[in-house]
């Protein structure tokens, strides 16, 4: 039931919105100032409330009026320093303003809203600070009557008294809407605004009753009564109002009558309601309105009850916070509604600067001129003119596009401005102290983006306050300032907008995220251990992830970080987190300026054209046919490409989308299954889809660049004809922090495309972000880079470079597990590279050739008071003699209880390599085999054999001497000859008797044969026929052998293997070739047996 003059109402709403814009910040400033009340600020807010109230009275927006009025009362008392602002009070005011805003945004329904809670609390505020005797006045209503005795208005006694107390005069002004306002070409709002300049409006009302019904005579005027308080003296006041002197009455006590309950209700029902001017039927006391009015009158009764129940305690903590909480629940639900209505409103209208509109107009004019030019050129068939016209239209459209885009641009302040309040409320709720710093409010973004980032940003800011900033006592203990800092900044960079949310809180603990993610089964433990700190933090974006130990009502708002990320992804945004435990977190968001028109890269796969948004595109890569073999590798099922030292996972677009080989039937335009079996068959040159450029290419009798796994395999297998078309085109794209290469057939132009949504039947296809119409009128799909990765099951986690690499490495390692060794590389002669397992080396010495003595036909060098026997490889193996250098490197080994030195040529270098040891080709005495290391064929030296050949007696001695452990036998299963020899070697050296087996099966059989004599089992894990796990299971499952200790040897002790081994009953783990520890372990286990 409101004034339905659209124009006026709209103006009122717009104006009120303007008033409300800065309220929050002002209130927050007032809160900050505390006792040092800044009157200007309070006045600002007061005026806002007051103007809203003034207009509302005129519009018949009774609820708005009431709420604004109560707010005004409180502010009035703040202004006169009767109340000192405190956080609780500001909270109440903020929430009241929230509701007020909500009502203003939805004026049509404002009268139906329930504001009783606000009213109660606000009145509570005013009464609490009033002296006892005045409290009553607050709840007492008085009728104000004209001198004629006609009661026209109702007001609270408190308002009148309050104004008088401030030395103001109260006037009752009688406007006539027709004569005083409309005829003078003013609007009611003008009048109200004018009045507000010189005083306050206590109450206002349009008296419809006085107008009468249609049956009576045409009314002389529509009276509009204003109860006005001002310090202006009665003598000069009529000139102020611009009305007849007789219409201004100074209100005296004689004119105020206490309200009598019954009749007033009735009367009000008939008067206050202002009906639409268009309503044919004059206002009767409608049931509805009576109900409403009752409510409006009821509060006084309510208030008095309230005052009685908790008069003083209102500011004592307990009740106060309870009532605030109660309110907050209400406001929260209201808040959502605000968002909704705001949304609707923001879509309905937009403010555009006149300058911009003028520019648009000019451009539109130019466009028309260019069109004329074009038409003329076409009709006269003038090619040159056509060309110029084309250019001109090109230019004008770009400019026009830009200008229109600008109309959609809004300042990010629209979003940022709500955060001081959010942070304040939250901090208060959580008992934290937080400073919010905002920078870059003037950065502009497309309005759709502004609307869309509001929620994700709110979530991030709330997170920063809730999870980031520590409570003050903890901060204090950590030596931080007790006041936490949250910084929100926006800036332009490279055609994108960056938004940063940083806090100086506790940061994100990557380890905890990993633990949590593993627990939830989102990643495997091995993954977790391989992740970089950044990747660990990025786990927070995984769906179904929340580290909050308990769901607070703050974080439990149903939006997880994954939703934030999805939302930002949808906008083409990129999120990035940097965090240091104990120091804080920085979240960076990159957003495109606009969404409607985006630059993109056009690519071809099969006959289809697709667009990749430039935002997602990192670079384009073309691997010439000759390099395909080297640069594209296959690991397991996945292809990867080496790009500047990193492995980039490759997705074959044709495969992901399952694009069959099809051709476009020129007759009916449909895609038919490809009939050609052989990819090398030629494609029809007449196909309209192919441009002339391609046609020339087509002449070559080679397959198109389409690349599939088979081809890759074929290519890597054997070199094929080198042809431009066999090059592989890769678009390197990124979705968030996660990069991959999209293998496509052709890379085409980069174009600005207009994004159009796809129909609802295609919502299930996650690979597309939309569609666009190309220059030839055909539709091309826009690829959703993140969606494609998902389809190919490259989740952002698994796909991230490092992890991928790790997986690849792990896969490789698994294959090469037995061959991954730490080797000491050295040279014999300058061209001969040799290596020995590093584990066998004691140390390396540098000696001077002249210090070598030849004693008893053997070379020795004095060393630490003893003689170190020296030998060179050429003594044993057929290698070149050592060159004569003045200085020599000596690698010292400890064998059979003695030290020996192998003389070699520098450089000597230790490497960790995966090698395939060829134990056949170059095998000879002292040389175990060969491998390619760093492009050199390297001889792997079997140092045992060398020494045994040179000094067989040493070993005889060792074998004759009873082993210190006494006839202990170890069963050793290992399929790699290299490791078998090495390990067996140093076990024997320690005096153990070793029975070796080439795999688990053999070991099991040997165990059957030797049964009792075996004291310990050493086994490799990965073996053919029967692997280490199963061997262990068999041993442990057999009563005869269950007592045997099983020690597993592995080159990679992953936690996963460890856990698995435990399950099978493996007693211990040792790294292959870590000789000392292995011996130690073996000894420990054997001692154990002995004691038993």
């Amino acid at each position, binding site marked *: 039931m409101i004034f339905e003059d659209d124009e006026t109402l709209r103006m009122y709403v717009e104006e009120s919105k303007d008033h409300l814009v800065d309220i929050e910040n002002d209130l927050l400033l007032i809160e900050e100032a505390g006792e040092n009340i800044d009157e200007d600020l309070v006045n600002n807010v007061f005026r806002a409330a007051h103007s809203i109230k003034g207009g509302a009275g005129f519009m018949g927006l009774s609820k708005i009026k009431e709420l604004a009025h109560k707010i005004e009362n409180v502010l009035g008392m703040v202004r006169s320093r009767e109340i000192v602002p405190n956080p609780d009070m500001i909270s109440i005011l903020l929430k009241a303003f929230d509701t007020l805003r909500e009502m203003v945004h939805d004026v049509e329904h404002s009268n139906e809203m329930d504001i009783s809670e606000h009213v109660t609390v606000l009145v509570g505020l005013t009464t609490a600070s009033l002296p006892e005797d005045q409290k009553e006045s607050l709840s007492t209503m008085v009728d104000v009557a004209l001198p004629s005795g006609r009661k026209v208005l109702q007001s609270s006694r408190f308002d009148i008294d309050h104004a008088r107390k401030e030395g103001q005069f109260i006037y009752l002004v009688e406007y006539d809407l027709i004569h005083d306002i409309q005829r003078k070409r003013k609007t009611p709002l003008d009048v109200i605004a004018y009045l507000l300049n010189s005083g306050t409006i206590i109450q206002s009302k349009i008296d419809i009753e006085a107008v009468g019904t249609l049956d009576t005579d045409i009314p002389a005027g529509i009276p509009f009564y204003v109860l006005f308080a001002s310090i202006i003296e009665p003598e000069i006041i009529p000139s102020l109002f611009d009305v007849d002197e007789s219409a201004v009455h100074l209100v005296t006590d004689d004119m105020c009558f206490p309200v009598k309950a019954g009749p007033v209700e009735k009367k009000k029902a008939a008067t206050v309601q202002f009906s639409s001017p268009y309503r044919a039927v004059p206002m009767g006391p409608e049931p509805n309105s009576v109900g409403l009015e009752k409510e409006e009158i009821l509060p006084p009764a309510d208030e008095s009850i309230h005052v009685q129940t908790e008069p003083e305690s209102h500011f004592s903590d307990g009740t106060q916070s309870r009532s605030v909480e109660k309110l907050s629940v209400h406001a929260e639900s209201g808040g959502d509604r605000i968002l909704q209505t705001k949304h609707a409103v923001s879509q309905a209208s937009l403010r555009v600067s006149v300058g911009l509109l003028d520019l648009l107009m000019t451009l539109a004019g130019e466009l028309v001129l260019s069109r004329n030019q074009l038409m003329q050129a076409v009709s006269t068939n003038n090619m040159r003119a056509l060309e110029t016209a084309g250019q001109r239209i090109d230019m004008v459209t770009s400019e026009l596009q830009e200008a229109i885009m600008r109309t959609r641009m809004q300042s990010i302040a629209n979003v940022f401005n709500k955060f001081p309040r959010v942070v304040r409320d939250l901090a208060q709720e959580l008992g934290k102290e937080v400073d919010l710093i905002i920078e870059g409010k003037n950065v502009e973004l497309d309005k759709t983006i502004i609307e869309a980032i509001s929620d994700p940003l709110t979530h991030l800011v709330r997170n920063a306050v809730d999870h980031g900033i520590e409570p003050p006592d903890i901060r204090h203990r950590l030596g931080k300032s007790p006041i936490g800092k949250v910084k929100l900044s926006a800036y332009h960079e490279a055609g994108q907008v960056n938004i940063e949310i940083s806090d100086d809180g506790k940061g994100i603990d990557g380890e905890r995220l990993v633990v949590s993610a593993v627990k939830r089964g989102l990643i495997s433990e091995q993954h977790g251990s391989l992740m970089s700190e950044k990747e660990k933090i990025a786990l927070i974006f995984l769906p179904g992830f929340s580290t909050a130990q308990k769901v607070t009502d703050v974080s439990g708002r149903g939006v997880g970080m994954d939703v934030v990320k999805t939302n930002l992804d949808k906008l083409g945004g990129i999120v990035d987190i940097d965090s240091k435990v104990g120091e804080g977190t920085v979240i960076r968001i990159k957003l495109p300026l606009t969404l409607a028109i985006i630059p993109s890269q056009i690519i071809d796969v099969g006959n*289809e054209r697709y667009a990749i948004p430039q935002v997602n595109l990192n670079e384009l890569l073309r691997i010439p046919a000759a390099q395909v073999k080297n640069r594209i590798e296959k690991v397991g099922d996945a292809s990867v490409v080496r790009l500047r030292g990193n492995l980039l996972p490759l997705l074959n677009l044709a495969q992901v989308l399952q694009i069959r080989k099809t051709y476009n039937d020129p007759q009916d335009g449909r895609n038919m299954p490809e009939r050609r079996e052989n990819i090398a068959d030629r494609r029809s040159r007449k196909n309209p889809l192919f441009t002339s450029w391609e046609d020339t290419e087509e002449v070559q009798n080679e397959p198109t660049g389409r690349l599939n796994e088979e081809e890759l395999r074929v290519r890597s297998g054997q070199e094929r004809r080198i042809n431009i078309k066999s090059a592989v085109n890769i678009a390197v794209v990124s979705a968030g922090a996660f990069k991959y290469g999209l293998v496509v057939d052709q890379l085409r132009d980069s174009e600005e495309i207009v994004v159009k949504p796809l*129909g609802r039947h295609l919502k299930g296809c996650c690979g597309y972000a939309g*569609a666009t*119409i190309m220059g030839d*009128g*055909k*539709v091309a799909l826009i690829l959703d880079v993140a969606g494609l990765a998902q389809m190919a099951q490259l989740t952002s986690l698994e796909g991230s470079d490092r992890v991928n690499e790790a997986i690849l490495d792990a896969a490789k390692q698994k294959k090469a597990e037995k061959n991954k060794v730490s080797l000491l590389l050295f040279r014999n002669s300058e061209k001969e590279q040799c290596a020995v397992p590093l584990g066998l080396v004691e140390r390396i010495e540098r000696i001077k050739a002249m210090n070598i003595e030849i004693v008893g036909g053997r070379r020795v060098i004095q060393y630490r008071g003893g003689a170190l026997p020296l030998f060179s490889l050429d003594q044993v193996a057929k290698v070149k003699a050592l060159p004569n250098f003045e200085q020599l490197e000596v690698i010292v080994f400890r064998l059979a209880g003695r030290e020996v030195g192998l003389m070699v040529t520098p450089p000597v270098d230790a490497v960790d390599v995966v090698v395939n040891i060829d134990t056949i080709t170059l095998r000879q005495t002292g040389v175990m085999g060969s491998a390619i290391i760093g492009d050199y064929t390297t001889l792997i030296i079997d140092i045992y054999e060398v020494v045994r050949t040179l000094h067989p007696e040493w070993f005889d001695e060792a074998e004759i001497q009873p082993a210190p452990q006494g006839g202990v036998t170890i069963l050793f299963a290992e399929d790699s000859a290299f490791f078998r020899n090495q390990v067996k070697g140093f076990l024997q050296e320690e005096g153990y008797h070793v029975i070796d087996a080439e795999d688990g099966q053999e070991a099991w059989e040997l165990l059957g044969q030797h049964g009792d004599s075996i004291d310990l089992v050493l086994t490799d894990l990965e073996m053919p026929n029967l692997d280490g796990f199963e061997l262990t299971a068999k041993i442990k499952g057999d009563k005869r052998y269950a007592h045997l200790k099983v020690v597993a040897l592995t080159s990679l002790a992953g936690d996963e293997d460890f856990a698995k081994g435990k399950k099978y009953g493996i007693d211990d783990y040792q790294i292959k070739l870590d000789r000392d520890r292995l011996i130690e372990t073996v000894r420990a286990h054997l001692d154990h047996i002995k004691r038993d």
Partner: protein
Amino acid sequence: MQEKSQRKQNKIIELATFYIGDALCGIDILNIQEINRHLEVTWIPQAPEYVLGVLNLRGRIVTVIDLGKKLGLSPISPGKDNRNIIVDSRDEHIGFLVDRISDVMIAETEKIEPAPSNIGGVQGKYFKGVFKTENSLIGVLDINAALKDE
């Protein structure tokens, strides 16, 4: 007054009829935006089987559906009589590809009988009813049921 209510009950509707294979179907002509033979359809990999692709209809992206497949009949066989019937459903243009277009029939709603639960192998849920003419049966399609996304 009585007459009015009667007319309301017995509305006359115009049915645009078309063939899907041998089955004659009809759509209330008021649902139809246009009928064209715009056949430059862009195929969409990974789309549901019944979606033929999308086409550009004066700047709008229109999803084209093989009505035969969608209704569980035989797929539309390509030919020169194929037509796209563009309908408007929930603020979105959607094209039905049909084998060929037939006449516009005038039908009284009263005479449209409820569809048997299984008409010619087609699931009854897609049809509002069956309209009998002298020599044929027309299945009256409920486009909203047919376009319900699954």
